[in-house]
Structure formats: structure tokens, C-alpha cells
């Protein structure tokens, strides 16, 4: 009984930590990502993945996309661990001390901008369904939506860079090479996913 209570308290604490970390990634991305790279509590990763699954489930039930949520979530997991495997494997050439756990935690938290963008796009899809028109309001919304998308994209790039910086310990140029190598296979792979209508915009 005491053991069960402890587990439940741990789970609640992890959930609160996820919310706290989300907030701090907005305000202090550098400091927070450094702290996240030292995390060992896998319940936090579970909650982030749960959010991803909730998004897929929502998208499937509201928009009736081609594939069921379980399948899309499975593809997401394959993508995620392929990406981590790539950075771990290639990063080992530059630095032998890379930790897998650190990569898992930092990349899980770098999903926050992705989640915000996809949830907001889902929301806008129902508030102002596409296609957009050439009217003044249509153009104004377009500028707003592109501003929002770019802001989230820049934030994502910062978190992605910090995730690599703190989990691999490499310098700026080496991280730049790593990302370039990653894009060499990930870009065609994303086109393939687009072709099969699994992800139109890469869920990374």
C-alpha cells in the first residue's frame, strides 16, 4: 500500500515537473535544457509522449485523417528513436561520452514547440477552416499564421540545438555538421512520409 502511494506521488511529481519544465523552456531555454539533460525520471518522457498520442487521437477523430492514431504514433516513435540513434551513433565519432538518456530527455522536451504548433493548427483548422481567401481578413490571418509558425520554428531550432549541445557536449560547428548529416537522410525520408500521407509537416 505504501509502495503504491509512493508510485502515485512520484507520477504526480513528474507531471508537475513536466509542466514546470515547459514553462521554463519558454522563459529560460538555455538553463532549463541544461537541467533537463541531467534528468533520469522517465515518467516525464511518458507524459510528453502521452501528449503526442492525445494530439494524434484528436487529429484522427476530428479530421478523419488516413491512418489511425496508433499507427501514426508508432511511426512517430520510430522517427524519434531513429533520430536519437543517428545522433548517438554519429556523435560518438566526435565525443565518446555521449549519454543516451540525456538525448532521450532533451529531444523529448524539444517536442514542445512541435506540439504547440500542431495543437494550434488543429485549433485554427476548426476556427478558420482552409482554404484561405484573398480578402483583407484572409491576408491578415495569413501574415499572423506565418508569423506564429516562424516564431515556433525559431524556438524549435533553438531547443533542437540546445538538446544536441547538452547531450553531446559538442561545439557549434560540430553540431552544425551533425544536423547537416541528419538532414541528408531525414529530408528524403520526410518526403516519403508526405507521399504516404503519414505526416504532411514532419512531426519532429
Amino acid at each position: 500500500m505504501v509502495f503504491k502511494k509512493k508510485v502515485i506521488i512520484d507520477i504526480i511529481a513528474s507531471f508537475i515537473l513536466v509542466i514546470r519544465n515547459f514553462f521554463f523552456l519558454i522563459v529560460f531555454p538555455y538553463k532549463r535544457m541544461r537541467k533537463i539533460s541531467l534528468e533520469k525520471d522517465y515518467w516525464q518522457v511518458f507524459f510528453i509522449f502521452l501528449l503526442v498520442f492525445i494530439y494524434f487521437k484528436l487529429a484522427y477523430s476530428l479530421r478523419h485523417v488516413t491512418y489511425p492514431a496508433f499507427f501514426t504514433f508508432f511511426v512517430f516513435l520510430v522517427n524519434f528513436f531513429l533520430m536519437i540513434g543517428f545522433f548517438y551513433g554519429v556523435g560518438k565519432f566526435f565525443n565518446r561520452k555521449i549519454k543516451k538518456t540525456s538525448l532521450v530527455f532533451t529531444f523529448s522536451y524539444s517536442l514542445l514547440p512541435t506540439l504547440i504548433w500542431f495543437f494550434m493548427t488543429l485549433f485554427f483548422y476548426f476556427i478558420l477552416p482552409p482554404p484561405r481567401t484573398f480578402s483583407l481578413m484572409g491576408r491578415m490571418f495569413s501574415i499572423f499564421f506565418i508569423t506564429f509558425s516562424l516564431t515556433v520554428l525559431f524556438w524549435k531550432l533553438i531547443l533542437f540545438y540546445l538538446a544536441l549541445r547538452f547531450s553531446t557536449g559538442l561545439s557549434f560547428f560540430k553540431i552544425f555538421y551533425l544536423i547537416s548529416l541528419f538532414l541528408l537522410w531525414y529530408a528524403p525520408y520526410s518526403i516519403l512520409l508526405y507521399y504516404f500521407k503519414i505526416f504532411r509537416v514532419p512531426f519532429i
Partner: protein
Amino acid sequence: MKSYSLKLKKQISEVFIIKPNDLGSQFLTYWFKKSTLFLKQFPFLYLIPLATLIAFLVYLFLGKKIVFITTFLQYGF
């Protein structure tokens, strides 16, 4: 007192988990550190104006085609 010193010790060891960034030349490293300093705390203060500027420039260059980009992105989920 002991807990404060432990906390400080933990924070210091956290700061030094990675080596400082070195871009090969002093000039580059200096400017890299200067320019990224703003992104370490509440980056949105700079990201939102930058994104707004880019969105306006895209609108100026592409005109009405911006609507197509938005439509494509809105179908993106």
C-alpha cells in the same frame, strides 16, 4: 547552511557539464557568444519581431501567394 552549500555545489557542477563553445577563432567565438546571449533568456522578445518582419517581407515579395502557403500549412496536421 549546509543545504545552501550543497545547492551551490550542484549548480556549479551543472554549469560546467560542457566545455564553453569554441568556434576556432577568437573573433568568431566572441561574436557568437554576444549574439546568442539574447536567446538564452526569453528569446520570444526577439523571435516575435523577427518572425513578424520576415512574414511581412514574404507578403511583400509573394503578395497574394502567401495565402497558398498558409492554406498548405493549415492542412499540415
